[in-house]
């Protein structure tokens, strides 16, 4: 009569000669061997995001011989992605990322089954999508999805969540949502308020960083499947690429965690936008002429005002290194972080019309609200920022 182990071995898929030749360097490693490679082939991994983290993650999972790889992405390749999203190429700019990624992965390993989920992961579809996979590797770029993936993994019967995240030149990695280990909410019960932590677009990111962290996520995924080594369960790996320092901090499962604790209060997926403090976009907001009491002006309107000789103070709230890339003639630079401390100097413009711009219109809106609160009477925000100016009014300026 077969033992339980023998029965499990018998259900693992076979490898053909082509696969054996392909994975030979794995097969001769005691920690992998034929059985380990079969486990990799039997595994189903969901890769959420095919961008900075997803690129190296998906590539190495394909190389390793994962049997089924699900990809979730609804975004389109942009030129600025190519500084770090190495699964995409220059020829892919403008194409859906999921198609670009699937093509390259298939070329690397045609034995792997790729399942495309060209959609945003939401509370409405996450449980349904995740149910077909064993492990979820989270390579997303926003807090709402982080919490969504975490909760869905826990609620799906504790599917391990290979977590990685980055900011500028620092990264974090861990494995969440295992049965006895902590989940993302054990570490961060609540998200930061919107606007506190800048995005890669606003704060910048060292291109290699998601490369480092994405491969760590792939490593953890493979270790979990093979059952070897010490996965980052109950540990948070901190990476600082500038110092090339790696630190491991201890994480504990929080017995009061609302999702994975002993008395969970979150038993189904919630509204994560609301949880993260994002108000739902009102339909008229896309072309709003006033946002939170601040008039929004278009770049053509700004040009018209200038050409008509209208008197106004043009304030640029970007950083000095951005000012070097492009600037609008006649603007005064006061980086957003200095606006509060420079209110005294700016006070001479209190009764004047003040037009504020940044790169794309987000930071300048924040500055406009600050000035309005400080008693400035006529403050407006340039929608689309200097990038819109460069695209529509002055093409001699680069966009970035």
């Amino acid at each position: 009569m077969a033992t339980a182990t023998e029965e499990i071995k018998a259900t693992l898929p076979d490898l053909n000669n082509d696969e054996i030749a392909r994975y030979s360097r794995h097969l001769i490693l005691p920690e992998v061997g034929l059985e380990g490679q079969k486990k990799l082939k039997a595994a189903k991994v969901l890769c959420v995001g095919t961008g900075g983290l997803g690129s190296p993650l998906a590539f190495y999972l394909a190389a390793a011989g994962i049997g089924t790889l699900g990809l979730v992405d609804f975004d389109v390749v942009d030129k600025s992605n190519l500084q770090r999203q190495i699964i995409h190429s220059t020829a892919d700019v403008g194409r859906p990322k999921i198609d670009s990624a699937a093509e390259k992965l298939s070329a690397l390993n045609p034995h792997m089954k790729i399942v495309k989920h060209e959609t945003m992961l939401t509370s409405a579809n996450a449980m349904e999508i995740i149910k077909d996979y064993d492990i979820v590797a989270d390579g997303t770029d926003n807090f709402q999805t982080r919490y969504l993936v975490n909760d869905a993994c826990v609620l799906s019967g504790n599917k391990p969540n290979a977590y990685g995240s980055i900011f500028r030149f620092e990264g974090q990695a861990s494995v969440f949502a295992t049965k006895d280990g902590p989940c993302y909410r054990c570490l961060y019960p609540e998200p930061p308020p919107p606007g506190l932590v800048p995005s890669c677009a606003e704060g910048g990111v060292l291109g290699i960083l998601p490369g480092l962290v994405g491969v760590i996520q792939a490593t953890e995924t493979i270790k979990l499947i093979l059952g070897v080594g010490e996965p980052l369960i109950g540990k948070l790996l901190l990476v600082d690429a500038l110092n090339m320092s790696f630190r491991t901090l201890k994480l504990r499962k929080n017995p009061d965690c609302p999702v994975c604790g002993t008395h969970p209060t979150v038993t189904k997926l919630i509204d994560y936008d609301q949880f993260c403090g994002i108000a739902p976009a009102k339909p008229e907001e896309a072309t709003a002429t006033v946002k939170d009491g601040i008039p929004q002006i278009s770049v053509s309107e700004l040009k018209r005002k200038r050409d008509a000789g209208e008197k106004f103070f043009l304030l640029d709230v970007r950083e000095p290194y951005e000012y070097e890339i492009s600037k609008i003639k006649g603007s005064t630079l006061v980086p957003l972080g200095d606006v509060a401390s420079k209110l005294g100097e700016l006070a001479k413009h209190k009764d004047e019309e003040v037009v504020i711009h940044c790169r794309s219109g987000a930071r300048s809106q924040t500055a406009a609200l600050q000035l309005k609160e400080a008693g400035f009477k006529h403050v407006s925000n340039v929608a689309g920022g200097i990038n819109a100016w460069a695209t529509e009014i002055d093409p001699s300026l680069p966009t970035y």
Partner: protein
Amino acid sequence: MEIQIPTPLRTYTGKQASVQVEGATVSDALASLTAAYPDLKKHLFTDEGKIRSFVNLYLNDDDVRYLPAKEATAVSAKDSLTIIPSIAGGRTLGTN
């Protein structure tokens, strides 16, 4: 003792990655930090003076939340406090 400042908060400490402070306990060390860098206060603490829940504090390698004395834990000059905020590396919340 040394407090390690994570990247997103370095704008409030004049770009310094670590700061030396005096204090007998974790709370004292943090009070010393926010006294020297007042802009940091609202990012680390709620109005009621509690540590914000998207910020984690580690005394050496241990989460302060799980130490028996929590923020009242005594510290010495050779200890190191690390602030770890949550990061998601990508889109700013609420904007494109």
